[in-house]
């Protein structure tokens, strides 16, 4: 079943003299439970592609249809609500809210969704234990290592029970041990919750874990390959 359908997606940046086509008419689908890496050299358009997919950057033309909803036809308010309920984000620089504890960071999105206190507490604990830092629930991000912060970010992304998770270079700031362990964790979460993961990455270790690799160059899909990792 398709979670995301992308039709002829284009993004053109107008600089002072030239037009740059960062994404050039991409059409692609993503199915439920996929673990996909979008790869390509710097400037190939993978981050722009992911931003449009996540409702963060408006395309020049084309459609992004998630669960039957063409997200770029929604008002800004409805789009924010849509992201809250359907899309999880993991960023390169973790981007946790620094004044909230690990637990509060995970719980926060559920609070925005209006989930009851008891449900939030149970799910926060469950997710933090699942990502292996249940004992640091009360720690502020500044007291956590980069790897631990990224684990909290994964737990936060999963907290809202999204249709899919977008991760832009999630391992770029991590050492090798943290990278391996984070990838293992995301792979487990993918299997456990059947959540679709889409990464933008340069990292070979991420590519080695991905079951689907989409290569983008000059804003176009160069290749789209599936791998059996089991």
């Amino acid at each position: 079943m398709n979670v995301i359908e992308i039709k002829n997606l284009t993004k053109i940046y107008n600089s002072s003299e030239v037009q740059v086509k960062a994404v050039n008419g991409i059409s692609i689908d993503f199915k439920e439970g996929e673990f996909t890496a979008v790869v390509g050299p710097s400037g190939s358009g993978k981050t722009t592609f992911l931003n449009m997919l996540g409702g963060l950057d408006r395309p020049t033309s084309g459609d992004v249809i998630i669960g039957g909803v063409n997200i770029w036809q929604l008002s800004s308010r409805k789009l924010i609500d849509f992201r809250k309920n359907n899309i999880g984000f993991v960023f390169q620089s973790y981007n946790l809210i620094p004044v909230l504890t690990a637990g509060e960071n995970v719980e926060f999105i559920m609070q925005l969704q209006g989930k009851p206190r008891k449900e939030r507490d149970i799910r926060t604990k469950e997710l933090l234990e699942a990502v292996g830092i249940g004992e640091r629930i009360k720690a502020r991000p500044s007291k956590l290592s980069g790897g631990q912060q990224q684990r909290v970010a994964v737990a936060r992304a999963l907290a809202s029970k999204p249709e899919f998770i977008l991760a832009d270079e999630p391992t770029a700031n991590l050492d090798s041990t943290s990278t391996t362990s984070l990838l293992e964790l995301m792979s487990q979460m993918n299997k456990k919750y059947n959540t679709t993961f889409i990464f933008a990455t340069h990292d070979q270790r991420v590519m080695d874990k991905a079951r689907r690799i989409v290569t983008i160059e000059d804003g176009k899909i160069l290749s789209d390959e599936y791998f059996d990792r089991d």
Partner: protein
Amino acid sequence: MFKYFKIAWRNLWRNSRRTIITSSSVFFGVFFACFMTSMQRGSFENMIGNMARFYSGYIQIQHPDHKETPSLNNSLLLSTELEEAISKNNDITHYQKRLETFALASNGEKSFPAIIFGINPQKEDKKSSLSSKVEKGKYLENNENALMIGKVLAKNLNINIGDSLILFGQGYHGVSAVNLYRVGAILDMPVPELNKSLIYMNLPDCQEYCSVNGQITSVVLMVKNTNKIKSVEASLKPFENENTKIYTWDELMPEILNLIEGKESSSAMVKSLLFMIIGFGVWATIIMLMHERKRELAVMIAIGFQKTALIFMMLIESFLIGILGILGGLGVSYGILYYLYKNPITVVGEMAETYRSMGFEPKIMFSISPEIFYNPAITVFVIFLLVSLYQIFFVAKLKVSTSIKS
């Protein structure tokens, strides 16, 4: 709501030094504005109070022409209906019929101009505690044929208790007014101008001296507090006619009102400058704060925080900075000003002389009128409202995808 407040409160203490410095600037702004206004207002209230008690009253009833031409020919007879309305009005604490005239006071070869008030000594004492101003001699009794004079006038005339003083003047319709009176008391008035020229005598004696037949030049009214002046004036307005007009103190002493307005506008300029500096300081802090958190704000929007909610949260944060400063400033200034209101500072030495020469009692008085405190608070609140427009604009224009990478 609580979650916004929680994040805003914690954000406030992320950079505690900055929060303390910004709140302190608000604190000092509010404190100095309150202090400055209280001192100025206190002096003015004292001056007006003294002038009202010892001279004009807060409201006066006169013949319509007496203000422009203060002659005995422009005197009035108080109607029974108006006197009844005055005595029935609960906001009027005292009223006093008065005959006011000018004369030359003479002792031996020395003569000085004097202003004479024919009064009811008992009523005057109730109104202004005049008996407490007696420096020498005995306070005048009703029907006692004697004078009370200001101490500077007494000194200038080289006259003392029990001495006789000749008054030369003009009576009703141009008749000569001359008589000899015994000095019963010498007064030390808080308004230095009055000390130089003031003479009190019993109203019937004064009426006889001026050859008037029961007329008076004014009825002086004191009210419960200055806020009641307008309502009392309004209640008496229906009694105005071709012989009777109601005036408030500011109509009778426009020079004092001008002085107050002049001083208040210059102090308003100083305060505006003070609040402008604070405003720019607060704005600089808010700009810094917003730019520092650009990425964080973008992430919050990305994960599902509505921009309106984010603006609300940021406003809570900046208003908390303001509220800390405002409450601190108001609390400290009220404490200090209340003490100074109860214990005015007495000025001594040359400074005291300067005060006296300007017609002020040599005391630094303070006021604790509510507007002294709520005006700076409202001003700071408005500053924060204006600064918050920047926050609203910033969040509304925030581009999520680029800000996350910033």
